[in-house]
């Protein structure tokens, strides 16, 4: 069912429907000091907002099934495409700090009073830092497998690690030498769906086909994901998982951590014990049986029920 208010891109003659999927009712830009961040909303304009941060290499419209379920419960679900993702502007530079700042601008636009915040994957890490920086702006925080852990890092000898770092950094620099004027590889809807399926291993092909049509751009030579081609998975830097996890014990608002029981490539391999060791005194951990990293896509109704119960009825 398509929303009557939202006008989809007319450049997409091929459409794929998906049961229960509903495109956002509104899309608009929030200016984050020079970068236009594209914000979407599902639900009535005057309903209380619930803010959702998507993960890396995702985009807000991956919530097209999940978000409408929270709308049914009375919420206005607000999300945004991170810089370089979806309909937000491609930036010259990217960093976690920049993502956090962009998120703060969206937060500030959406509500001057405290609201619930949900983040998935990298968006969960952004959400945890945002809630830590602005404890007075959030009533609840839900983190969906966005709790980085070093638990799955390979245990290798020092010289082997040095060799791995050497290859990693050289590969990254080689990539940076090649990014000017780079374009994403075009393809058919099926080809893009198959490619994404390698990273989203538990998603159905039909769902991924649908995602192509809401998260892709239809150029004359084929479909391309709306993700800045200068962005690359992985990379390197001084970043440590504990820098995010150290924010967790001090969180001010009610906190719900959610993990899936099935580990997969896009996750950090975080185990329940990694979370329990950092859980705030009144925090709560739920492990969703039979779900992977994208638990809100795999089990949208169960996740909407869980989050709805945790944050309470909208007021």
């Amino acid at each position, binding site marked *: 069912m398509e929303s009557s208010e939202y006008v989809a891109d007319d450049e997409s003659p091929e459409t794929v429907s998906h049961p229960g999927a509903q495109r956002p009712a509104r899309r608009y830009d929030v200016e984050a*000091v020079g970068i236009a961040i594209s914000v979407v909303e599902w639900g009535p304009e005057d309903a209380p907002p619930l803010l959702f941060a998507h993960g890396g290499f995702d985009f807000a419209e991956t919530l097209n099934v999940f978000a409408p379920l929270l709308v049914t419960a009375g919420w206005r679900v607000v999300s945004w495409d991170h810089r370089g993702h979806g309909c937000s502007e491609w930036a010259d530079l990217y*960093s976690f700090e920049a993502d956090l*700042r962009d998120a703060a601008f969206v937060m500030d636009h959406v509500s001057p009073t405290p609201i619930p915040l949900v983040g998935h994957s990298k968006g969960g890490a952004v959400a945890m830092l945002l809630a830590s920086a602005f404890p007075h702006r959030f009533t609840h925080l839900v983190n969906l497998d966005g709790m980085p852990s070093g638990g799955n890092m390979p245990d290798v000898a020092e010289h082997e690690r040095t060799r791995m770092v*050497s290859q990693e950094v050289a590969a990254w620099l080689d990539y*940076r030498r090649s990014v000017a004027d780079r374009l994403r590889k075009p393809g058919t809807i099926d080809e893009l769906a198959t490619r994404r399926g390698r990273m989203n291993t538990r998603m159905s092909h039909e769902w991924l086909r649908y995602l192509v049509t809401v998260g892709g751009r239809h150029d004359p030579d084929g479909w391309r994901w709306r993700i800045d081609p200068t962005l690359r998975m992985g990379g390197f830097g001084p970043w440590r998982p504990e*820098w995010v996890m150290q924010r967790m014990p001090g969180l001010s608002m009610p906190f719900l951590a959610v993990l899936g029981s099935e580990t997969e490539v896009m996750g950090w391999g975080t185990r329940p014990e990694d979370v329990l060791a950092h859980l705030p005194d009144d925090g709560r951990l739920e492990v969703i049986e039979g779900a992977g990293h994208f638990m809100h896509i795999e089990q949208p109704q169960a996740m909407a029920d869980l989050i709805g119960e945790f944050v309470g009825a909208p007021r």
Partner: protein
Amino acid sequence: MTGIPIADRPTLLRHGRIDLALWTLRSGEGRPLLLLHGLGEHTVPIEPEWTATWPGPVYGLDFTGHGASTLPRGGGYTAEMLMADADAALAHLGEASLVGRGLGAYIALMLAGSRPAQVYGAVLCDGPGLSGGGVQPGGTFVTVPRFGHGTTPDPFAMVELNRDIRPPDYAAQFVRLGFERSPVPDPLLVAAIVRPEWLATVVAQPGVRTMHRDRALAELARTVSG
């Protein structure tokens, strides 16, 4: 001859969406010397007197958001991305010895470790941005710079790269990487008097030598000439 401007226009090198200004401070044959400025600084397009003894050409790079390089929108700086700026200059020059000031010293260290076969030694000197943001993050906060007039240096660079976290073991790994495959016997010479924790750890690594900038440059010059 020094003290005379020889280039009023830099060579522009493309890095992603950024045009980087590479200044030729002295042209000529031989192994290039590449100068990397500190945070908020830029290349002064005149050869400095202290490089007069260098046997090859001398260049200076303006980092992203500095000097004559592109001023990006909306920040997002990391030291790693500035290393990739310096790597773009290295790709253009083929090989180089490096002298870095402040932030440029940290970048020189990283590049010496990441491109050991192309970097013929690096001298790390005092300068703005040497410390970075310490060895681990402090409290979380979001900063939006309100100063600046739409010109370089980019206020975002000044804020973000002064908060750039530099764990000592992260810095030390570039020393190990650099020493493993360097074409010169002393790939890292530290001239900086101030030693933030990352640099103190670098200095403590076997083989890293400390000396005045001019002597360090003279040693490198001897190595690359020989």
